[in-house]
């Protein structure tokens, strides 16, 4: 059975989740990436959206303005979450966000923030942007449009948005960090073997 999180997300909804679990999201999902993080953390500007118990998406979508003035979500996949590592721990603290969706892993600071303030990071499969767009029911709002299409805070109502693979849970586990450690361990003997065949300079 599908495990579905619904906004506003409560701490107890996240307690049993472990890295590698697959969940889906129903409710409100707000895009939030580089400049929005900078504005809040570095410049101290108030976010125009309340994210208490909310979910953000590291994503810069393609959006089309329809003839009636409303927006249509064309294509929305995740962007590289690691770019927000510098800001995310403080971002979680200040906003009370509970679910961070993106691509690839995040670092130890975000993992610490998730543990301290009860939040999770999840991976939506990168590049699957039309799949994601079809799970957006409506764009309910668009804030900070001065940032241009990719950086605007697009407020989406989503239904069973996913698959979302939990990559950082509330217990300090970090799936991609663990994977990277194992990739680096495996690499060494492979490289030693390859190099034996590459002594072209004699």
């Amino acid at each position, binding site marked *: 059975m599908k495990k579905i999180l619904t906004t506003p997300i409560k701490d107890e909804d996240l307690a049993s989740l472990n890295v590698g679990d697959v969940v889906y999201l129903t409710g409100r999902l707000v895009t939030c990436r580089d400049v929005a993080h900078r504005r809040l953390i570095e410049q101290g500007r108030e976010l125009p959206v309340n994210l208490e118990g909310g979910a953000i998406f590291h994503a810069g979508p393609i959006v089309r303005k329809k003839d009636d003035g409303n927006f249509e979500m064309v294509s929305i996949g995740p962007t590289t979450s690691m770019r927000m590592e510098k800001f995310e721990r403080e971002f979680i603290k200040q906003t009370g966000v509970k679910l961070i969706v993106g691509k690839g892993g995040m670092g130890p600071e975000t993992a610490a923030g998730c543990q301290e303030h009860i939040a999770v990071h999840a991976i939506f499969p*990168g*590049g699957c942007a*039309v799949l994601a767009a079809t799970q957006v029911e409506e764009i309910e709002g668009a804030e900070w449009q001065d940032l241009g*299409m990719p950086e605007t805070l697009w407020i989406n109502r989503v239904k069973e948005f996913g*698959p979302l693979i939990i990559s950082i849970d509330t217990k300090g586990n970090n799936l991609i960090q663990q*994977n990277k450690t194992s*990739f680096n361990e495996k690499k060494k003997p492979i*490289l030693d073997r390859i190099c034996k065949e590459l002594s*072209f300079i004699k």
Partner: protein
Amino acid sequence: MDKEFAVQSLTDVMAKFTAYIGKRLPKDVKAKLADLRTMETNPLAKSIYDSMAGNQEAADKLNRPSCQDTGVIQYFVEAGANFPLLGELEEILKEATAEATRIGPLRHNAVETFDEKNTGTNTGTNIPWLDWRIVPEKDSCTIDVYMAGGGCTLPGAAKVLMPGQGYEGVAEFVMDVITERGVNACPPLLVGVGVSTSVETAARLSKLAIMRPVDSKSSNPRAALMEELLEQGLNEVGIGPQGLTGNNSVMGVNIESSARHPSTIGVAVNTGCWAHRRGKIRINADMSYEILSHEGVVL
């Protein structure tokens, strides 16, 4: 055909082709992804491959860009010296990019550096980026269109090694870049490696390397051996789709090289994501064209 009409006609073709390649993958990439999907045994990785396949079907059916990051548009031009629109081509491709942005629609991905303003058209100073090679005598022109997304551009790295580090140092550099930074670039990746004399020559060749078909082999036997060893080695690491582990890591490794200074080994790595959106088109002197990368295209 008068010149004005020829310019109009080529602009129209290139605009439509540029928009098209954001929606459907080239045949070599499609075939490789199907193979990797079949080979995968890890349940989570299998489900990611299923999502990827479902996404490409939906993009085709709904006629939308399959990934929201339609990249910075780059054109790799191999122009015959006698191609009739050689002098007009730069302006044509700029106009085609702006038009593709409207009809795609493509995401607005050209930010003027220092001014920090998004132009909203995907055109700007030296963007779209053009790479030129001139072929003597010929009067046709072959263009590779590439959407350089942010995620798969980020791992890019170049370095100049000392000869003492040898080809072993090249292999180490490639493996380090991919295991450390490849995870975020939407694997399985197409890895392009340039081995040359300095950073910029190696970097350019590493990009041209990912314009080659996924399963192509270098014509130099030692380079081909190195491609094979790196491909097998990286696959053994088992990065899997999206870095979630799996049976493979890459779609392939392509190496391009030049002669070099005896004291240097320039090496560079460029990566293409699984959604490797490139297209190849040949334009003839009379502006008729043939699409070489995709089958059954109607522009």
